Structures are given as C-alpha cells and as structure tokens.
C-alpha cells in the first residue's frame, strides 16, 4: 500500500465540486445504539439496488441503514465527467453527515470507491462486497464474457453488464430484466480509472475490513476475492451459486445476514 499522505495540495487547491446526492434510508423503530451502515452501489447502480432488500433487512435487525447514489447515478445530479475522487468525496460527505461513525459497505466498483473513501474518513468498519478493483485481468475476463457490453467502455462508452453476469438463474427472469433496465452508467473518466487498478492510500483509523462475494460471480473471479481479502489481512466469505449483484439476487438475505453477524461479533466495529 502507499504511504500515509499529509500533503494534499491537489485536494486543497482543486476541491471536488459539490453535487446533489440521493440518499435512501431505513432506520429501526427503536434506536439500539448500533452503528449506522452506509451502502455504496457499484458503477451503473443507484441507491435503489440496496433499497430493494438490504436496507429494510438491516433496519429490521436494529442497524440504521443508508444508501447513496454516486453522482451521475440513480436520483443524484448528472455528472458525466465524474472521477473516482469525486465518487469517494460523495461517500465521505454522506458518511460524515450521519449522526455517528459509520460502517461503509461497497459493492462492485463501489467497493473500490469505499477503499478510497477509507483514506479520508475513519470508518468504524468496512465491507467490500464482490469488489471490482479494476486492472487488466478483470477487463479481459469481462471482455471474454460480454464483449459487446464491455468494449465500448474502453473507448468512453457505457459499460453494460448483462443479466448472466449479474444474477444467478434462480432469479425470476422478469425481475432480472427489471433490474437490468434500471442500470445507468458511470462517468467515462471513472470507468477508465478502473483500467489502471488505482491503488488507495492506507485506511485511516485502521478499521476492520470484511470481503465477501461469490465463487460463481461472472465479474469478479474467486482468485481476485482472495487477493483483495489478503490485502486486508483476512479471507473472503463465499456464497456459492450467486451472481455479482448479491443484494438483488434470489438469495439476497444470506450475505446481508453474514455482514450483520460479523458486525455484531467484531469488537472494533461495535
């Protein structure tokens, strides 16, 4: 990992331009003193992806749950020129606006955004769900599986993930089609950043990090999950038989229950 950086000349002299952000939430009826969760969707997804199942489920188990749409996604302000830094800024802004120190949960490329946000906000803990950290290996996998949806992104076009990449066969066709139709796109500069596998600065406040995913994910291979988990000093939790979008797939309850169980047991995240 890179070194802790105190001098941040570029961030001081060119701060990220503010943007209106959509934040959806579900909070438990009785405050139980549990840390708030902030869900960060991946590229193309909005806060809606977590509002379907995970927000409500987390709230029903006593965790205040929030999800944001990164700029240019869902109900947030359009931002075609958004960068990875702007996305990380969005996450840190929302996290710092929550009443108490939050746990960041990033999905897909949202996990990469969370990894960068962790260098600017001392989260109580972090969960990386099917993390897409970029790099050429991941690109070649995606091109092999879905050339028509992936190649345009290399030239600044939209990245279109297919139903087969995102969901297992267990998910009813009609539901899957509905979700795929809701997908948007990330800014091209942010998409290009994925090619370089941009390395994050070390997390501040040494939060515990959980990595989870599916060995049958057609976007993130199991070997990548293991590599990223090792970087944070652990092994990935695996949910066989699920697609990339664990929060929307047929068995969505298993991963979120595992995350909440982990939070209840992890002393530093309590």
């Amino acid at each position, binding site marked *: 990992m890179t*070194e*802790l*950086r*105190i*001098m*941040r*000349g*570029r*961030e*001081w*002299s*060119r*701060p990220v331009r*503010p*943007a209106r952000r959509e934040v959806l939430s579900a909070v438990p009826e009785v405050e139980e003193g549990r840390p708030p969760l902030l869900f960060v969707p991946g590229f193309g997804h909005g806060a809606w992806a977590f509002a379907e199942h995970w927000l409500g489920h987390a709230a029903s188990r006593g965790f205040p749950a929030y999800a944001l749409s990164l700029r240019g996604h869902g109900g947030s302000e359009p931002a075609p020129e958004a960068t990875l830094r702007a996305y990380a*800024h969005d996450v*840190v*802004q929302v996290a*710092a*606006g*929550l*009443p*108490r*120190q939050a746990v960041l949960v990033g999905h897909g490329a949202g996990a990469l955004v969370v990894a960068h946000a962790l260098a*600017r*906000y*001392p989260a*109580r803990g972090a969960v990386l769900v099917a993390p897409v950290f970029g790099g050429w290996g991941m690109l070649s996998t995606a091109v092999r599986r879905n050339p028509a949806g992936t190649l345009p992104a290399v030239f600044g076009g939209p990245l279109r993930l297919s139903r087969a990449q995102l969901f297992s066969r267990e998910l009813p066709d009609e539901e899957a089609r509905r979700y795929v139709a809701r997908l948007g796109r990330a800014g091209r500069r942010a998409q290009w950043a994925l090619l370089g596998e941009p390395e994050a600065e070390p997390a*501040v*406040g*040494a939060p515990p990090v959980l990595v989870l995913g599916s060995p049958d994910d057609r976007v993130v291979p199991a070997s990548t999950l293991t590599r990223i988990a090792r970087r944070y000093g652990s092994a990935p939790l695996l949910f066989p038989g699920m697609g990339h979008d664990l929060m929307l797939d047929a068995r969505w309850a298993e991963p979120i229950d595992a995350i909440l169980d982990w939070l209840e047991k992890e*002393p*530093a*995240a*309590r």
Partner: protein
Amino acid sequence: MSTSTDHGRPDPDATPSAQSPEGRPLSDRGDTVCVIGAGASGLTAIKNLREHGFGVDCYERETGVGGAWNWRHDRSPVYASTHLLSSKPFTQFPDFPMPDSWPDYPHHSQLLAYFERYADHFDLRSHVWFGTEVIRVEPAEGDRWDVTTRSTGGYGPERTSRYAAVVIANGHNWSPKLPRYEGLEEFRGEIMHASSYKDPAQLRGKRVLVVGAGNTGCDIAVEAAQQASRCWHSTRRGYWYAPKYVLGRPADQVNDALLALRVPLRVRQWLYHWTLRLTVGDLTRFGLPKPDHRVYETHPIANSQLVYYVGHGGIGPVPDLARFRPYAVELADGREIDPDLVIFATGYLPRFEFLDASVFGDSAGTGRPTLWLNAFTPGHPTLAVAGLVQPDSGMFTLAHWQTVLFARLLQARRDRPERAAAFAQRVRDRAGERYSGQVKDSSRHWFEVGHADYLRAVQRALHDLEAK
C-alpha cells in the same frame, strides 16, 4: 467503539492507590492520557488518541465543546460577524469534511456546529469532564504526569490523577495582550480589547479608533466603517491586504496550486505582488502606508473590504499612537484625533499557568515555550502541545496531524522503544525550529508557520518514526 484500554471515567474512591509527594490522595489512571481543553485541538486529540487505542480523560473548564469558537464561553474571542479566513478545504479536519452545502468561508456559528457534530459523530463527549479546570500539571516519576483539577471557578475539592501522558490544548487566543501607552490611564473615553467586542451595535454612532491590523482589527475597522460615525484605523506599518477571492476562486486555493507545484518563495512573492497590484491596486493611492516587507513575511491578512471602505472614506488610516490625552489621542506624526471608543485588536499571548515554566525551557519567563514542531518538549517525551500554531491557513488540520503523530509516538514508546528514543533525541536537537520563511520578529509571529512547510515537517517526522 470501545477498547480494552477504555477505563471510563476516573473514580476517586476506587483507586486511591498512591499518594502525591505532599500526601494528597492520588488516583492512578494507568495508561490513560489526559487532554486539557475540549476546543478544536482538544477534540481532535481525544479522537485520534482513542483511534490509536488509548483511554482519554479530557478536562474542559467550560460546559460545552468548541473552545474559542463557542461564543457562549466567556473566553471566546468571536464576534457576531466572525467568518473563517481560510476556505473549507484548509479549515476542516482532514478526515471529517465540512458539508458541501456550506459556503467557501463558513460563519463561526457553523464552525461551532461542526465541532459539536465532530464530538457526537465520534462519541467524544463521554470522555470530557466539563466544568473542570486544570490547576496544576507536574512531572512524576517514569515520564508520567500528576494533573490536579477542580471545578471551574475555584470551589469544590482539588483532585489529583496520575496520567501516562498529557496533551495541552488550552488554546492561545484568550489571554489579551495590551500594549502600554503614555497617558492611557487618564484617557476619558472608553477602552476595550477586541476580545470584548461582540456586536457591531457596540460601535453605532460612536467615534471609533481601532488599533492593530490583524485580521480581527481589519474586521472591526470594516464594521466601524459601516456602523460608527467615524472610524480611524491605526497600524504600525503598511500591510498587504489580500482579497478572499482571486480569479473567482478562494485566494488560498489559488495560492496552494502554486505551492503544490513547489514554486519557490521568491517567485510566489513576485506573483502575489503582481496579482495584488492588478486586483487591489496601489495602496498608497488610498493613503495607506506602503508595506515595509514582502508578502508572506507577516501573518497574512485576508480582507477584501478594508481597502474598499478606505476608498469610500469610511476608514481613515492613521499611523501608530504616540500618547493618550484625556480627550484625545496623539499620533506618531503629531496629529491629534478625538475618538470616544478605542478598541485594541492587539492580539493574545499564550498562557500555561498550570505548568512550571521550566518544563517548556522558558526559564526567563518570556512566555514563549521552546518546542519542536511547535508541539514536543525536550526532556518530556510524554507531553505534547496541540494547536499552538499560527498558520497561514486553517489550523485544525495541523492540530489533527500533531495529535496523530503524538498518538503514534506513544504507541512507539510501547512497541518500538528505540524509535521513540530516536524521536526524543530529535526533539532535543531541533527544538525551536521554524517552519516559515523570514517573518517579522514580534510575539505576533512566535508561532507563525507556513502550512506547507509545517505539514511537510510533520510528514517527515511521522515517516522517520515509522519507517521499516
């Protein structure tokens, strides 16, 4: 977040484990660190020490957080119109940004809200003893510290606790510095220090003389131009009055674009002079004295309105004061003016009345401590001062990194003592180091640092402490 080193609040009955030299009962707080003050620097000290696994007891003489920025506090110097002088990116804590919806230069009430949110977000209040002042801090054996406290105002019993380390964050903008003038006692008009200036209504309809061209003096002069019937502004020398915006952006952000490129000081000074000439213009045309120094050699003044009001006749620039007469003030150039209110915006001096001056190597009693990185004391490895800096930028970022460095130093004392020893040696060798270009020699500039030079020095210190 709770950790094993969290001892909760000290309980005087539970641990009367030792006696102080004078035989007073002493509660031993183990590895806990004591933080003095719950202002900006104290809060970030609590947060960062907790984050590094230390238990913290913080003592705060007031009943709320925010220190100088809490206008309810009797030592708060803020006035109704106080706004930030540095824009948001330079002012906020580096890991807790101010909301995007706030302006470039927030108001002091927003800053207080920011500190309150910071305290709640990281659950800091449970570590603070409010309404408790520290009256003595004495070194004890094993580099530990005996801290004696009592209720603010002096009633109630004294209590002494022994701590592993102490962070002094008592602020340096609360003890007014008043210059001496011949005849000041005979002057029949009203005299106040800027610390008691709260509201422009205090100026309305009066003939006001403002002394001092710090940022506060300039702010008050501008308000007097708007409210008073007459305003004079006395300055010792000519200054550079920098606008808060240049090229449509906050001026400090433009300046740091050059700093980030490591443009040399001389070139930056030249560019700055050139920009000011184009935007503000020739100050002598307005009757203001020509600056006797280059920009960056005195603490920067960020005020877009002062020159504007001089140009509108609202502010009459005058030189230094020579002496006071019962109904007039004589100026250094022999002129006489007749104000009925004189406001001394002449700054503040730091005070550590709870600490023996010898601890800070200040045997002469000048009040100026000899420190490394404005924070570390030779010979006292477990003592740090937070926020004793006067940067050309926001200071909370600096206090944040000072306390992170101190927390990591305390960790190193435990885990890698040889590193901590090397750090202590550097403190002895380099105490008194400056982190700015040449500045005018006055108590105003005792703690003046350039934020880039200073933070680079902290970054190096952190790196030396933790390098493999």
